[in-house]
């Protein structure tokens, strides 16, 4: 049976969680051996992507991207991080802030496959659609 990238990543996370340094080394060795035995080394990219996702999840880490029309203050950043923590239950938010004048005003917040689009650009677009109805 073919082992999916997700299954690999999940078992790796389980094997190395709460293990000492020696155990960790052994677990990684064994993991590499299994991948070699199954001839799955060429799927490393896929597996590592799945691993980092699951690792983040296990650690309660959440990557988010915050886009504003102007430079973003530190206060806004902490407020957004607090909001995301409360909303998703994540323990740590890795927030990347971006400035994009194209959105005119407001903000766009992205995390996982979710988007909260509170930009002026979208509002104007929606208003245009509404008026055209």
């Amino acid at each position, binding site marked *: 049976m073919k082992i999916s990238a*997700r299954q690999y990543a999940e078992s790796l996370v389980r094997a190395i969680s709460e293990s000492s340094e020696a155990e960790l080394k052994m677990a990684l060795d064994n993991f590499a051996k299994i991948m070699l035995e199954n001839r799955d080394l060429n799927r490393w990219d896929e597996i590592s992507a799945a691993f980092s996702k699951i690792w983040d999840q296990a650690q309660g880490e959440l990557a988010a991207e915050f886009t504003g029309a102007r430079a973003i203050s530190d206060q806004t950043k902490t407020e957004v991080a607090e909001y995301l923590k409360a909303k998703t239950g994540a323990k740590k938010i890795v927030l990347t802030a971006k400035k994009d004048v194209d959105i005119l005003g407001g903000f766009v917040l992205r995390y996982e*496959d*979710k988007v*909260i*689009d*509170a930009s002026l650009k979208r*509002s104007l677009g*929606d208003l245009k659609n*509404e008026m055209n109805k």
Partner: protein
Amino acid sequence: MSTTKDFIIAQLKDRIAGYQAEAKEQTVGRVLKVSDGIALVSGLSDAMMSEILLFKSGGREIVGVALNLEESLVGAIILGEFTAIKEGDEVVCTKRILEVPVGPNLVGRVVDPLGAPLDGKGKIEAAKFYPVEKIAPGVITRASVKEPVQTGIKAIDAMIPIGRGQRELIIGDRQIGKTAIAIDTIINQKGQNMKCIYVAIGQKESKIANIVAKLEEAGAMEYTTIVLAGASNSASLLYIAPYTGCAMAEYFLDQGEDVLIIYDDLSKHAVAYREISLLLRRPPGREAYPGDVFYLHSRLLERACKLNADFGGGSITALPIIETQAGDVSAYIPTNVISITDGQIYLEPDLFYQGQRPAVNAGLSVSRVGSSAQIKAMKKVAGKMRLEAAQYRELAAFAQFGSDLDEDTRKKLERGKRLYEIFKQDQYLPVPVAKQVLIYYSLINGYIDDVPVEKTHEFEEGLMKYADLNNQALILIETKKELTEEVEVEIKKVVEDYKATLDYLIK
């Protein structure tokens, strides 16, 4: 003028003030791959099965439907211009299952499988939106089939009667009159309290234009909707077209009305589904169709039903059409659909080229539930007709070898010849049931035995005209729906009176 201007500005202000610009959380994904009307999308972790997805490409929104939900991917069919979609485009979940507009305003219109008008008669105000896929009504809600659908085609109404709520397959080779039967049936529904929906799947648009013109000419568009997925549309649109038609029919069903729906044709539908399935990399089975091709048609045709009075008493009668290749009814799709339906009308090329049109094969055609839906008068005159017609064909083939036949056989052959003459019928000329009873009554009671075979058609036409002028008998059949003595006396009188005016009878 200024009051108008102020008024407009005030209105505009109100509308803008009333408009709430809210930021909703949306689930988005990215197109990984797009090909032939199929897209693979990453993300969309909470997409639902057959949910509408919006592809935001080049400033436009193109509708798609999620069909494959995988661990990190969603396979979607694109309903629309898929050439505009590029790799990396954003895709948004809508949290809505694929649905189409339904309601009385669709009657008389030609629409595409998403319910958008194609006839240039303007926007359609929908009464409601119905999901395209719906589970068929259960046992508790159903009743047995007991009212007839009058097709107006003599051979079918007599031999293979169809009831309201039945599913009767029309099967045969190409160019042999399958659609003609369907269209005649629609034309004959005038004044029969029936809504009609014609679903064209992969048909030539010129053919559909012809059909629309014919239906309009016959006044049949007043109660007909046409759902068109033409030959130039993508497989995705062909795939959803019959379900769309069925959703539109279900609206009328829920109003307690009777609906006739024609799927023309389901072989092209299966081919479209095969294309989609192969592109979505589902494993192919027999004839490269996917494993669920049976379910594809069974879930569609199961939605045809007759509901009992507690549930409104409406019905959906389905006439699916299947095109066979060189008369091969044992191919995969024909056998599937034959086993799903309550009977089939088999059209035979040999009969067709002999001039026997409609080319209904009496031996292979059956109706499993329709006979209980025939009116009593028809049942009495046409009860054994299918058997007789089938026997005549065998007898005629056999009789070619021997010259001396006994009296009984000869009589049977003569009657059979005339029966087949009566079965012949021109296109777009459906015959009302009362007239059918009249002509069959004349046949089984020997009134046509002394009419030369080649004059049978002329005799029939004359008799119908004569009966129209002295319409006592027709009215009686129509109202009583039974062959009481009173009715029989009236019929005999008409036929005998008419025969007295003829000069070509065999002495």
